[in-house]
């Protein structure tokens, strides 16, 4: 179970017998403001875990630290048994961990297809010289990259298909930008996919479609998914486990049914009932 007892040869590989992601006592301060105050978090391979919590609870900071945008102040992040805390974002992506953003961050002037191809590049090995000399490896990889990108986009059905592939990303509708961001993260062929509020700003029909899509990310593509989500219906529908954050610490952890009846969770979301306030 823990990082120290498993055979060393499997560290960082798919044979790692322990949990896919294991986080211990993760701490992060921003200029004296405590964003994360010692978080423990475990994700088993093949599961879908939701992270919920009130605004400012530290959910996005949690993702930012895992994906390497900010190094943690303290604590360990074991991904497939390897401590990835403090690595650069591109090194973490190389180890097959990808994420999306709450406020969609695409490359707006690149086409839809190019956005996804950029995501795929970290899995190809040819460099600038291969391109200049047009080596066979480069041509093969270039062709494979494009085919792979089209395949990833076909996961979204007719939403990102046909003429849209050649459009720059900034012309897309809001929902399509969210889909494209997921497609781009999928293109890095991750084992673990972190989705930051994938349904934010979507209408009920689009939310339903995306909920189904998150399920397919696991069943069709075999991704393990951690998502931050505010829509409790989505959380209830897709997650195996739910973790509740508040004030940078983990408040509760369990199935949706367990956490949704947890008194501390209800209190964090709704506040304390008025008659109990005096006695507390």
């Amino acid at each position, binding site marked *: 179970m823990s990082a120290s007892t498993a055979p060393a040869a499997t560290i960082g590989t798919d044979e790692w017998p322990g949990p896919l992601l294991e986080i211990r006592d993760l701490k992060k301060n921003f200029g004296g403001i405590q964003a994360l105050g010692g978080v423990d978090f475990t994700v088993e391979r093949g599961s879908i875990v939701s992270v919920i919590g009130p605004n400012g609870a530290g959910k996005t900071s949690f993702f930012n630290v895992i994906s390497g945008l900010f190094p943690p102040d303290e604590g360990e992040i074991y991904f497939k048994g390897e401590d990835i805390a403090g690595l650069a*974002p591109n090194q973490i992506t190389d180890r097959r961990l990808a994420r999306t953003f709450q406020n969609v*961050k695409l490359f*707006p*002037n690149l086409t839809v297809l190019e956005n996804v191809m950029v995501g795929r590049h*970290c899995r190809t090995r040819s460099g600038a010289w291969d391109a200049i000399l047009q080596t066979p490896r480069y041509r093969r990889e270039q062709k494979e990259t494009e085919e792979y990108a089209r395949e990833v986009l076909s996961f979204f059905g007719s939403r990102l298909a046909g003429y849209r592939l050649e459009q720059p990303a900034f012309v897309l509708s809001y929902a399509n930008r969210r889909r494209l961001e997921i497609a781009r993260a999928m293109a890095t062929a991750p084992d673990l996919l972190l989705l930051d509020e994938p349904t934010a700003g979507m209408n009920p029909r689009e939310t339903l479609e995306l909920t189904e899509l998150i399920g397919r990310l696991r069943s069709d593509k075999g991704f393990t998914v951690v998502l931050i989500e505010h829509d409790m219906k989505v959380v209830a529908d897709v997650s195996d486990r739910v973790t509740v954050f508040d004030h940078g610490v983990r408040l509760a952890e369990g199935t949706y049914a367990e956490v949704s009846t947890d008194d501390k969770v209800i209190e964090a979301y709704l506040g304390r009932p008025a008659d109990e306030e005096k006695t507390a």
Partner: protein
Amino acid sequence: MTATDPPRTQAPSLFTRARRRLTWVDSFLWVIRVGAVLLIAWGLIGSIQRFTAGLGPTGSQWRDLLVAAIAFGAMYGLIAIGYSMVYGVLGFINFAHGEVFMSGAFIGYFAATALSNGGLWQSNPIIAMLLTLLVSMATSTFMAVLVERVAYRRLRSSPRLIPLITSIGVSFFLQYSFLGLFGATVRTYPTLPPFMTGNIDILGVPVQRSQLLVIVVAAVAMSGLWQFVTRTKTGRAMRAVAEDKEIAALMGINVDRTIVTTFAVGGAMAGIAGMLYGQLYGVSFFMGFLPGIKAFTAAVLGGIGVIPGAMAGGVLLGLFEGVGPLLILGGLGIASPSQLRDAVAFSALVLVLIFRPSGLFGEAVGAEDRA
């Protein structure tokens, strides 16, 4: 509609509405715009009148001017690419780029001289010139990468003014290093082989071969670069880094290496321009200054950060300063207008920016505002 409706002010006419929105600065700019158009039109008409009256340059002289201007502009375009790409990725103007160009031309000169002394320049000029071009490109590439590594990388997260000032410092450092090492004399490349001098007929138009060489090499280099940037993995990585470094890193792109590649590609283009410029006009430690500033102007003219803009801006600036003085100023009756070519070049920049502040190919809205 009915009698009980309260009275309202009358809807203003379209003209009044437009005038109400017009600020003082707007009116001033419109006066300059209209004035500029009138002045240019006046100069053009004057030139046409002089031409029909048999004054001023003859038809064949105009044609030679035009070809020379395009050749000059092509070199500006090659240098401008370096300014534009670095600006696109790092958001500051690398003023040392003119010296990157100079160093390529300079070391290219030494290579050409050595090849000439060895006899290859005379016996096999095409291979010799190709070798010189490679030396020139390699030098400029090395210099651009070195400058990035030594001077700019540690300043990556500091405010943009700081690398800008640093680049001016680097520019002086390189200029005076070359002065100290090689002296102040202007050196000329070995003379071109006979088949490279004189004129060649293209569709019945005689063109100087040396200038044709410049135009062809520049066109090949630019189309190669365009293919590289739009079609290859590295090119896509460069565009991704230019749009958002943080997200590019999350996509597994090595941002540092991509920035180095950007400097290298810009340097290689400057190296090509350096060799072409050097064999036409000779090399000196100070040769990078004016072409550098002009190429920067060309990059701004075309819309900085946009590669086709840099190419088009270079050719346009070459045309403005090559043909503009005689065409406009000559038509206005100004004596020996060609001496004012630099003034015309920079006036052209000011005018383009008054009409289109983001440059010819530039985006009016920043990428951050759109997605």
